[in-house]
Protein backbone atom coordinates (compact mmCIF):
# COMPACT_ATOMS: atom_id res chain seq x y z
CA UNK A 1 0.00 0.00 0.00
CA UNK A 2 1.35 3.43 -0.85
CA UNK A 3 0.24 6.95 0.00
CA UNK A 4 1.56 10.33 -1.13
CA UNK A 5 0.20 13.12 1.04
CA UNK A 6 0.86 16.55 2.44
CA UNK A 7 -0.37 15.84 5.96
CA UNK A 8 1.44 14.02 8.76
CA UNK A 9 0.74 10.38 9.65
CA UNK A 10 0.24 8.52 12.93
CA UNK A 11 3.04 5.94 13.13
CA UNK A 12 1.48 3.82 15.87
CA UNK A 13 -1.92 3.73 14.19
CA UNK A 14 -0.43 2.85 10.79
CA UNK A 15 1.64 0.00 12.22
CA UNK A 16 -1.29 -1.30 14.26
CA UNK A 17 -3.62 -1.23 11.22
CA UNK A 18 -1.08 -3.07 9.09
CA UNK A 19 -0.72 -6.05 11.40
CA UNK A 20 -4.23 -6.16 12.81
CA UNK A 21 -5.72 -9.64 12.92
CA UNK A 22 -2.95 -11.34 10.92
CA UNK A 23 -1.42 -13.89 13.29
CA UNK A 24 0.92 -15.21 10.60
CA UNK A 25 3.06 -12.10 11.16
CA UNK A 26 6.11 -12.64 13.34
CA UNK A 27 7.94 -9.37 12.75
CA UNK A 28 7.16 -5.81 11.73
CA UNK A 29 10.00 -3.53 10.66
CA UNK A 30 9.57 0.17 10.16
CA UNK A 31 11.58 3.21 9.22
CA UNK A 32 10.68 6.85 9.72
CA UNK A 33 12.66 9.52 7.91
CA UNK A 34 12.60 12.93 9.56
CA UNK A 35 13.81 16.44 8.68
CA UNK A 36 17.25 16.76 10.21
CA UNK A 37 18.63 20.08 11.42
CA UNK A 38 22.32 20.87 11.31
CA UNK A 39 24.78 20.09 8.53
CA UNK A 40 22.99 20.12 5.20
CA UNK A 41 22.60 16.98 3.13
CA UNK A 42 25.39 18.13 0.86
CA UNK A 43 27.78 18.30 3.79
CA UNK A 44 27.89 22.10 3.76
CA UNK A 45 28.33 23.81 7.10
CA UNK A 46 25.18 25.89 6.78
CA UNK A 47 22.19 25.10 8.93
CA UNK A 48 18.97 23.69 7.58
CA UNK A 49 15.67 25.25 8.43
CA UNK A 50 12.63 23.76 6.78
CA UNK A 51 12.68 21.67 3.62
CA UNK A 52 10.15 21.72 0.81
CA UNK A 53 9.50 18.47 -0.99
CA UNK A 54 8.39 18.76 -4.59
CA UNK A 55 7.02 15.70 -6.37
CA UNK A 56 5.56 14.56 -9.69
CA UNK A 57 1.89 13.76 -9.03
CA UNK A 58 0.94 10.60 -10.86
CA UNK A 59 4.48 9.41 -11.52
CA UNK A 60 5.26 9.44 -7.80
CA UNK A 61 2.40 7.07 -7.01
CA UNK A 62 3.29 4.92 -10.02
CA UNK A 63 6.95 4.60 -8.99
CA UNK A 64 6.09 3.94 -5.34
CA UNK A 65 3.79 1.11 -6.43
CA UNK A 66 6.60 -0.29 -8.59
CA UNK A 67 9.03 -0.12 -5.65
CA UNK A 68 6.52 -1.87 -3.38
CA UNK A 69 5.99 -4.51 -6.09
CA UNK A 70 9.74 -5.11 -6.27
CA UNK A 71 9.94 -5.66 -2.50
CA UNK A 72 6.99 -8.06 -2.59
CA UNK A 73 8.65 -9.98 -5.44
CA UNK A 74 11.89 -10.33 -3.47
CA UNK A 75 10.51 -11.16 -0.02
CA UNK A 76 7.42 -12.92 1.28
CA UNK A 77 5.58 -10.09 2.98
CA UNK A 78 2.26 -10.15 4.81
CA UNK A 79 1.94 -6.39 4.54
CA UNK A 80 3.84 -3.40 3.18
CA UNK A 81 3.18 0.32 3.57
CA UNK A 82 4.94 3.37 2.16
CA UNK A 83 3.77 6.86 3.08
CA UNK A 84 5.72 9.79 1.64
CA UNK A 85 4.86 13.40 2.34
CA UNK A 86 5.38 16.46 0.15
CA UNK A 87 5.26 20.21 0.77
CA UNK A 88 7.02 22.30 3.41
CA UNK A 89 8.31 20.39 6.45
CA UNK A 90 9.99 21.85 9.53
CA UNK A 91 12.99 20.26 11.33
CA UNK A 92 11.87 17.20 13.31
CA UNK A 93 8.84 16.59 11.11
CA UNK A 94 8.27 13.15 9.57
CA UNK A 95 8.96 12.82 5.82
CA UNK A 96 8.49 9.16 5.07
CA UNK A 97 7.24 5.96 6.70
CA UNK A 98 8.04 2.45 5.52
CA UNK A 99 6.52 -0.56 7.29
CA UNK A 100 6.95 -4.20 6.31
CA UNK A 101 5.50 -7.26 8.03
CA UNK A 102 6.44 -10.88 7.51
CA UNK A 103 6.35 -14.21 9.26
CA UNK A 104 10.15 -14.01 9.46
CA UNK A 105 12.10 -11.13 10.94
CA UNK A 106 14.87 -11.10 8.33
CA UNK A 107 12.36 -10.65 5.51
CA UNK A 108 10.77 -7.72 7.35
CA UNK A 109 14.09 -6.07 8.23
CA UNK A 110 15.71 -6.55 4.83
CA UNK A 111 12.71 -5.41 2.79
CA UNK A 112 12.34 -2.31 4.97
CA UNK A 113 15.99 -1.37 4.36
CA UNK A 114 15.56 -2.13 0.66
CA UNK A 115 12.49 0.09 0.36
CA UNK A 116 14.08 3.10 2.02
CA UNK A 117 17.22 2.75 -0.16
CA UNK A 118 15.12 2.52 -3.31
CA UNK A 119 12.90 5.43 -2.31
CA UNK A 120 16.02 7.59 -2.04
CA UNK A 121 17.04 6.97 -5.63
CA UNK A 122 13.86 5.95 -7.47
CA UNK A 123 10.96 7.98 -6.04
CA UNK A 124 10.39 11.27 -7.91
CA UNK A 125 10.77 13.75 -5.04
CA UNK A 126 13.11 16.74 -4.86
CA UNK A 127 14.18 18.48 -1.66
CA UNK A 128 14.62 22.24 -1.50
CA UNK A 129 16.30 23.16 1.78
CA UNK A 130 16.50 26.44 3.62
CA UNK A 131 20.05 27.32 4.63
CA UNK A 132 21.71 30.37 6.09
CA UNK A 133 22.69 31.25 2.49
CA UNK A 134 19.15 30.85 1.13
CA UNK A 135 17.13 28.02 -0.36
CA UNK A 136 18.98 25.43 -2.41
CA UNK A 137 18.13 22.14 -4.08
CA UNK A 138 19.62 19.11 -2.39
CA UNK A 139 21.92 17.22 -4.73
CA UNK A 140 21.66 13.46 -5.11
CA UNK A 141 24.39 11.70 -3.18
CA UNK A 142 26.72 9.03 -4.53
CA UNK A 143 26.30 7.15 -1.23
CA UNK A 144 22.58 6.80 -1.93
CA UNK A 145 23.31 5.33 -5.35
CA UNK A 146 25.72 2.89 -3.71
CA UNK A 147 23.11 1.93 -1.11
CA UNK A 148 20.68 1.17 -3.92
CA UNK A 149 23.33 -0.68 -5.94
CA UNK A 150 23.85 -3.26 -3.19
CA UNK A 151 20.32 -4.52 -3.89
CA UNK A 152 21.02 -5.08 -7.60
CA UNK A 153 22.51 -8.49 -6.89
CA UNK A 154 19.84 -11.05 -5.96
CA UNK A 155 19.31 -11.10 -2.19
CA UNK A 156 20.61 -13.95 -0.06
CA UNK A 157 18.06 -16.54 1.03
CA UNK A 158 15.59 -14.18 2.66
CA UNK A 159 15.02 -16.11 5.84
Amino acid at each position, binding site marked *: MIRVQRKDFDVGAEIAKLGAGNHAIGGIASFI*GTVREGAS*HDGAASHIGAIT*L*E*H*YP*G*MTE*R*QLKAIEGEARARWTLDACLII*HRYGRLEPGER*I*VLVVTASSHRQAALESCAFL*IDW*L*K*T*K*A*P*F*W*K*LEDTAEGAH*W*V*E*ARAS*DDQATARWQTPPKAAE
Partner: protein
Amino acid sequence: MKLLYFAWLRQRIGHTAEEIAVPPEIKTVRELIVWLKARGPGYAAALDDLSVVRAAVNQDYVPLDHPVRNADEVAFFPPVTGG
Protein backbone atom coordinates in the same frame (compact mmCIF):
# COMPACT_ATOMS: atom_id res chain seq x y z
CA MET B 1 3.03 16.75 -26.23
CA LYS B 2 2.61 17.39 -22.51
CA LEU B 3 5.88 18.64 -21.04
CA LEU B 4 6.62 18.80 -17.31
CA TYR B 5 9.59 20.27 -15.43
CA PHE B 6 10.55 19.82 -11.77
CA ALA B 7 12.88 21.28 -9.12
CA TRP B 8 15.59 23.61 -10.49
CA LEU B 9 14.76 22.72 -14.10
CA ARG B 10 11.28 24.08 -13.47
CA GLN B 11 12.75 27.22 -11.89
CA ARG B 12 15.09 27.89 -14.83
CA ILE B 13 12.39 27.23 -17.43
CA GLY B 14 9.90 29.30 -15.48
CA HIS B 15 6.86 27.05 -15.46
CA THR B 16 6.04 23.48 -14.48
CA ALA B 17 3.87 22.29 -17.41
CA GLU B 18 3.06 23.12 -20.99
CA GLU B 19 1.39 21.59 -24.04
CA ILE B 20 3.49 21.92 -27.19
CA ALA B 21 3.03 20.55 -30.69
CA VAL B 22 6.47 19.11 -31.38
CA PRO B 23 7.64 18.76 -35.02
CA PRO B 24 7.33 15.19 -36.30
CA GLU B 25 11.08 14.96 -37.02
CA ILE B 26 11.72 14.88 -33.23
CA LYS B 27 11.97 11.16 -32.57
CA THR B 28 13.89 10.79 -29.26
CA VAL B 29 14.20 12.47 -25.88
CA ARG B 30 17.64 13.73 -26.88
CA GLU B 31 16.28 15.34 -30.05
CA LEU B 32 13.50 16.88 -27.98
CA ILE B 33 16.07 18.39 -25.62
CA VAL B 34 18.02 19.96 -28.52
CA TRP B 35 14.79 21.38 -29.92
CA LEU B 36 13.67 22.74 -26.51
CA LYS B 37 17.04 24.43 -25.85
CA ALA B 38 16.48 26.56 -28.97
CA ARG B 39 13.22 27.90 -27.49
CA GLY B 40 14.94 30.33 -25.14
CA PRO B 41 17.68 30.98 -22.57
CA GLY B 42 15.65 29.42 -19.69
CA TYR B 43 15.41 26.11 -21.55
CA ALA B 44 19.05 26.33 -22.57
CA ALA B 45 20.14 26.89 -18.95
CA ALA B 46 17.90 24.12 -17.59
CA LEU B 47 18.99 21.52 -20.16
CA ASP B 48 22.64 22.54 -20.46
CA ASP B 49 24.30 19.79 -18.38
CA LEU B 50 22.76 16.46 -19.35
CA SER B 51 24.71 14.63 -16.64
CA VAL B 52 22.22 16.07 -14.11
CA VAL B 53 19.09 15.88 -16.24
CA ARG B 54 16.76 12.89 -15.95
CA ALA B 55 13.78 12.18 -18.19
CA ALA B 56 10.51 10.30 -17.88
CA VAL B 57 8.12 9.37 -20.69
CA ASN B 58 4.59 8.57 -19.61
CA GLN B 59 5.77 8.53 -15.97
CA ASP B 60 8.54 5.96 -16.42
CA TYR B 61 12.25 6.79 -16.25
CA VAL B 62 13.83 6.52 -19.70
CA PRO B 63 17.31 6.93 -21.21
CA LEU B 64 17.87 9.87 -23.57
CA ASP B 65 17.62 7.73 -26.71
CA HIS B 66 14.07 6.71 -25.79
CA PRO B 67 11.45 7.48 -28.51
CA VAL B 68 8.92 10.28 -28.00
CA ARG B 69 5.65 11.00 -29.80
CA ASN B 70 3.28 13.97 -29.62
CA ALA B 71 0.81 11.92 -27.54
CA ASP B 72 3.39 11.40 -24.78
CA GLU B 73 3.77 13.01 -21.37
CA VAL B 74 7.46 13.89 -21.11
CA ALA B 75 9.10 15.18 -17.93
CA PHE B 76 12.56 16.58 -17.17
CA PHE B 77 14.05 16.86 -13.69
CA PRO B 78 17.29 16.49 -11.72
CA PRO B 79 18.27 13.23 -9.96
CA VAL B 80 15.70 12.53 -7.25
CA THR B 81 16.34 13.28 -3.57
CA GLY B 82 13.34 11.90 -1.69
CA GLY B 83 13.18 9.40 1.16
